[in-house]
């Protein structure tokens, strides 16, 4: 009887450890979605949880280096990068963007209220050991190369890696 309880407790502990991580699928590349993504990831890492962000589709664009402007091999991919400026400084709002006036005001408000910028949060995430994994398939699709993206990321990987990491963890799709 007593061993049964001890075994059950042990199993629960193991389950708890496995369930302790956080995996965020960062699909959206908008300022107001990248912000909470990075805030949750840095906080989760600060709480000692194994934390991974899997960046896919539009979510890859904030990871483009500031000095890289046009990406892609063909006109369609190049046009995409013209229409959708990469890097953390050119992110749009999902609503009330007003041709860039919305994000400018939002950044001004953030500064006044001591809210860290996405750029600062990315650095913080790296220093706290958040694993940031770019999606290989969407990189190929959108014409993004590893050297177009910022340093400090994990090697690009696929859905299997992401789902394995997410197995048993808390997951968010943002």
């Amino acid at each position: 009887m007593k061993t049964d309880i001890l075994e059950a407790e042990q199993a629960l502990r193991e389950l708890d450890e496995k369930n302790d991580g956080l995996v965020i699928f960062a699909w959206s590349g908008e300022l107001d979605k990248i912000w909470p993504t990075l805030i949750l990831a840095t906080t989760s890492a600060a709480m000692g949880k194994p934390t991974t962000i899997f960046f896919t589709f539009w979510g890859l664009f904030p990871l483009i280096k500031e000095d890289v402007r046009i990406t892609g091999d063909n006109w369609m991919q190049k046009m995409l990068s013209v229409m959708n400026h990469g890097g953390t400084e050119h992110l749009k709002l999902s609503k009330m963007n007003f041709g860039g006036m919305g994000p400018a005001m939002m950044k001004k408000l953030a500064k006044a209220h001591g809210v860290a910028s996405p750029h600062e949060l990315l650095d913080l995430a790296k220093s706290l050991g958040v694993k940031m994994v770019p999606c290989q398939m969407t990189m190929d699709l959108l014409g993004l190369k590893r050297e177009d993206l910022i340093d400090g990321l994990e090697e690009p990987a696929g859905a299997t890696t992401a789902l394995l990491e997410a197995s048993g963890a808390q997951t968010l799709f943002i």
Partner: protein
Amino acid sequence: MSVVISKTLDLKGFACPIPIARTAGAMKEMTPGEIMEVLATDPGSVPDFTAWSKATGNELIEHTVVDGVYRFVLRKR
């Protein structure tokens, strides 16, 4: 028993998640049993530091507020 503070982290003016994230980063550099003091102005840091202490096991020895400045005293686990 008097509390010897080994490190003070001034995070006044910073909003969530900076106070917790920087505290966690600084805590890594400390040795178990050492005491750190954190100053913040984010009102959300009161429940957040309590939750963080619970999650990480770093003990929140005391928290006070003086003139809108929250002071947290933490012992590294």
